[in-house]
């Protein structure tokens, strides 16, 4: 079996948003929506700091779909539009999505984004990978782990572009993969672990 996952070295993340914007580009994400965001933890402004000057700390947290093993969104979906694919990714069948947004409410990571209106693109045209499926008004979307790219032997776009080398993509079912080693050997942070969602995306330093 295959269980694709992403590991993020938060020690290396400089909060540059390159992963976020490259994701938008590659996946033809409409205006006003992002699948992948970089948060400044505990701050109400981007690039803020926790504490009081000069005793400060700043941590960036890139956040997208966690491709959970026990995905709350999947359990909430009444039509089976959200499903776990053979490579272990959580995916959405846009044709089956009825726009009820139960998954959006269920996802504790706020990783899903909804096409409230007819998708608009400031470029006036589509962009990104040619095989990324079109989405229309009334469907949910989120990080797919770029099956269009991984199918061509490439890394997901966020991993390929990261200027700091903070992201690792791989198969958690392959014990010899770099990502499996990281998961075994590093002090790993799982977001909202007590929710029992078992994210496949994890963080380390």
């Amino acid at each position: 079996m295959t269980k694709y996952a992403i590991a993020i070295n938060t020690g290396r993340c400089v909060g540059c948003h390159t992963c976020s914007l490259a994701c938008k580009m590659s996946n033809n994400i409409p205006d006003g929506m992002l699948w992948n965001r970089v948060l400044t933890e505990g701050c109400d402004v981007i690039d803020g700091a926790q504490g009081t000057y000069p005793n400060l700390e700043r941590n960036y947290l890139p956040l997208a779909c966690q491709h959970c093993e026990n995905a709350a969104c999947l359990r909430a979906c009444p039509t089976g539009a959200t499903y776990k694919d053979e490579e272990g990714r959580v995916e959405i069948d846009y044709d089956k999505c009825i726009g009820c947004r139960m998954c959006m409410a269920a996802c504790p990571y706020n990783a899903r984004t909804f096409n409230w209106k007819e998708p608009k693109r400031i470029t006036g045209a589509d962009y990104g990978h040619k095989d990324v499926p079109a989405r229309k008004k009334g469907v949910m979307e989120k990080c797919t782990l770029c099956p269009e790219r991984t199918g061509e032997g490439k890394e997901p776009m966020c991993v390929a572009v990261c200027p700091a080398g903070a992201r690792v993509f791989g198969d958690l079912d392959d014990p010899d993969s770099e990502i499996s080693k990281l998961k075994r050997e590093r002090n790993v942070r799982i977001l909202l672990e007590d929710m029992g969602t078992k994210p496949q995306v994890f963080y380390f330093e």
Partner: protein
Amino acid sequence: MSGEKTVNPGITRRGFMKGAAALGALGVTAGGIATATSSLAPTNAQAESEEHVAYTYHQSHCGNMCALACTVRDGRLVCIEPNSAMAERRYKTMCLKGVSEVQHIYSDKRIQTPLKRVGERGAGEFEAVSWEEALDDIVSQIKDIQQSFGKDSVLVTTCAECDVPFLATILEARTCANNNGIDIGTGNGLDPATGMGWGFAMSAQEPRDWVNSRLVLNVGNNFCESSLANARVMFDAKDAGAHVVTVDPHFSTTACKSDEWIPIEVGTDAALFLGMTTHILDNNLGDQEFMAKHTSLPFLIDTKTGMLVRSEEGIVDEAAKAEAEAAGTEYMPFYPFLVIDEDGQKKPYTEAANPQLTVEGTFDGQQLVSVYSKLCESQKAYPTSWAAEVTGISQERIEALAEEYAAGPSSLCVGWGGSDKLSNADITGHAAAVLVAVTGNIGKPGAGVGVYVGAQYAGYAAGFGEWAIPEKYGLMPGPADLQMRELRQTDIVHAIVAVGDLLAQKVGNMKLTEEWTKTIDLIVTADVYFTEGAKWADYVLPLTSRFEYDAEVGNVKNGYNHICLQEKVLDPLFEAKTDLWFQRELAKRLGYEDALPETADERVAAIMAGCTENVTLEQLKENQGVWPITGIENPRLVATDYAFYTESGNMEVYYQNLVDFNQALPQWEENIEAYPGNPEREKYPLQLTNTRTRFRIHNQFNDSAWLAQYYTPTVHVNPVDLEAQGIKTGDTVRLFNDRGEIKVAVAANEAIRPGSARLYEATTADYTVAGNMQDLTNDTPIERGAALMMGPVAPFSDTIVGIEKA
């Protein structure tokens, strides 16, 4: 902008649950901005479309110049990713600015057609004209102006991202001196010591060498934002065991990713270096052999004149002499500096076995002191207790840092962006040079000094040829003897041809620049995007972005230790023309029909004809437009033979030309405005820091809608400086001083040093609520400016402002 856009959705459990509202706050106003090119291609099924990949490079001015693979579908740029043919993973990189080009090159701020001013200058009223009409009139006016006022009454100003190397020559026009004082602050003080760096402190080895450092001391740089690809190199160094310490008034992105952040009072980097040097000298932690053999510290000073003493016997370089005689010029032998040798005798330093450092006394009736002894005397004013008081860093921390730095090997990263934009930047550079000289932290693995920004600037470079303008025309560029700030006070200039922003980039105190431009007979702006400067032009001409070309290839350059080819990605958009076409059309109208290559292919052939690497254009094309330069397996080091490019060949820290300013050795001096005790700070309590960011390269990308999802111009201020006035994140504030005022959104941010306000560079009026950042900035030249290597610094950050709710 709305304050909303700076709002971070948060990561607390509650933050996750805030859901759509928080996500929406990040969004662009959907459909709110008209696209310039919505008619170019329909939104349709992508799978059946024609698609190809072309290779080019991105902007160079962050010091990176990422090699890009660009997917074009049905004539539109749709995807950009790192070029997979680069030699190593570390070079296969790009940042959010590169990604944003998929939207940005179609921005509604593109100049689409030649424009001619119809209203008052500066009013921004234009009508469309043809290229033919515009160029005919421009050249006719330039001819008249040059006939009346001389060739040098025409000024050409360019920016680093354009490609107009022939423009000033074909117009025989003057250009601005010394980059208008930008990025030369630290270099002014550092570079005379090493003879390297070109005045820009570009004397560092490649940042990859940081893995060999025990200490990477980064003072006033934020390369994790301004030169994003350096982030990877910094983390590699940390992984290899280097101790990365960042000194910055603000808790910058680089500071928060370093092993340690040392907060410092604004504009006091020189005081830190002076204090460290004193501690090293007092405790004999220096590198005695390096000082004696490879610096000017043993050289002797005549105490009466303050000048270095030289041998009366000159050293003659026979080859150079023969060359001079053949050329009919006078040959001057080199009269070597004198030192005291171990035998107590005065000798040329070139003949001394062991030059003595500590010397003070009368020799042959002359009162002499060594530079070293003079330095020790000079440093008495700068004990670490003093440095602690000035910098706000504890004495213990300064001393421990000095000890760690001296033990080495240490990289000292200075220049650009931070203290480089302050009035006393040359003293910072000079004090850094002294620190390096006494510790020998240069010329070996893990030890260097200067600007470490960017793989491109400090990396390997191939030599290239260039198209030569035929000699028959006798064309030469005009003088480059004055900065724009100085030209602004003269009536020399009657016409300006600007490629890139003219007004808002080069000089502080912008109201004076605006007044000056009203006196100019002709202003032409040629650019990709409509900038602040374009508003003041008589003609605004559309140039292509680097993704568009009218030939198969546009240019060849060095970047990331590779030779990189600029392939045509797209045909020119709108009526935009290439930089080369623009120059050629001007030349043609001036009667220099074949002065420039007819096509870019012809020019690229000339460039490649002089290429020092064993590669052809065809091989470049076959390898996705990139080719690794010989030797890049190891980081590029500099001055490994300790042969410095100075008169003596040693590292020279005693600046004779500054004796009259009491700066032959670095002496502490406050900034002009930005110092704590300035009585003006009662009115203007905040120092305005002019900072570089990951979201811009100077004024580039101001108009990027995709980047505006993450950042729109906002001044960041520590909450303690806002609370007193009841100002909150999201409010609009008025920043003001005697020079002007602007209105801009504000955010409270603990990362900002109390007493400072941080705004990102090149914030122009179209992106604030009102006003240009340069309306506020300081343009005062320092007194010793003219005596410095690169002239006076542009002290953009030596600016104080008041703040109130707008």
